[in-house]
């Protein structure tokens, strides 16, 4: 039961509650990202202490908004149920909480700056992969519960939405935000 909650808490937490918890978590992730130099460029995690706090915050906000918007549009197109935007935006935000693992692990001094091909790099990659895979599985369940979709429709629309959202986020960050 508890392990189920780790991958699908959305039957218990959704709507405004998930939005509030998610917003607090997103702020903490951004703050820790700033302290440790952990960028979330879509789901590509870049170790670089090179920017002001607002850049880390905008990266996380844009990840959330792009993913939510594309999943919401996909839900409107493919679901026969009535979809609430608050559910999609709230559960999507909640799904991003596992990303916090990466900046927490990077508080360890050996992982703050490290050489390519080093053991620290290997640890960084493994931790990043775990966080991203966990986040994606949560996003999948959030989309499934919020839009009441099943089978091929669910899988295909989720993958396509996620790809568009990640490309959109990266374009937005590269072409607009990083030019300030």
């Amino acid at each position, binding site marked *: 039961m508890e392990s189920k909650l780790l991958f699908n808490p959305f039957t218990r937490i959704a709507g405004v509650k998930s939005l509030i918890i998610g917003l607090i978590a997103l702020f903490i992730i951004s703050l820790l990202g700033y302290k440790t130099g952990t960028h979330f460029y879509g789901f590509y995690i870049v*170790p670089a202490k090179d920017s002001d706090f607002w850049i880390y915050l905008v990266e996380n906000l844009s990840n959330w908004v792009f993913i939510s918007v594309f999943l919401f549009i996909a839900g409107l197109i493919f679901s026969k149920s009535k979809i609430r935007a608050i559910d999609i935006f709230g559960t999507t935000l909640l799904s991003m909480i596992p990303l916090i693992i990466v900046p927490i692990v990077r508080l360890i001094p050996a992982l703050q700056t490290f050489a390519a091909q*080093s053991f620290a790099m290997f640890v960084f990659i493994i931790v990043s992969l775990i966080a991203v895979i966990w986040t994606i599985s949560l996003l999948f369940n959030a989309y499934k519960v919020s839009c009441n979709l099943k089978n091929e429709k669910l899988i295909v629309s989720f993958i396509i939405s996620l790809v568009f959202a990640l490309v959109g986020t990266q374009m937005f960050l590269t072409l607009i935000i990083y030019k300030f």
Partner: protein
Amino acid sequence: MKSITMVFSFCLMLGLNSCNQGFKKLDESKTDDKKIQIAKNFAINFYAKLKNGSYYEFKDEATDKIKNFLSEEKQKSGYKSIKEQFGDFQSLEYAETWIQNSDSSIYIIRFKSDFDKSSKKLEIRVILNQSDKINGFWIKPWSDMLM
């Protein structure tokens, strides 16, 4: 659970085998201020000249390899492309020093620099040889991972 442990052990072994302990970051207490100053002066003067439309004229502060490579034409075209992407050079600050484990006389000195059209810092890296001559010099987006 058993299979997860096996996969994790395999990944750990793979990681340990692929480790290349080729570089070591120096503690602040072990860095050489004189070397940092040489690298800093060079990088600031280099970019200040190019920002003013001129170019950096090498004397005896760099190896022949660097002097031959960074001709007037290469300096100007390189700066033009940096300027198009990131704007004009503003300032730089010292970040850290690394050495090669196999040859501790070679210093890799990293600076974080600001350019006016970029919200992110760029790395200016200066490599000094055992005679404190510049033997490597480049610019790239900053990463906490030395590549």
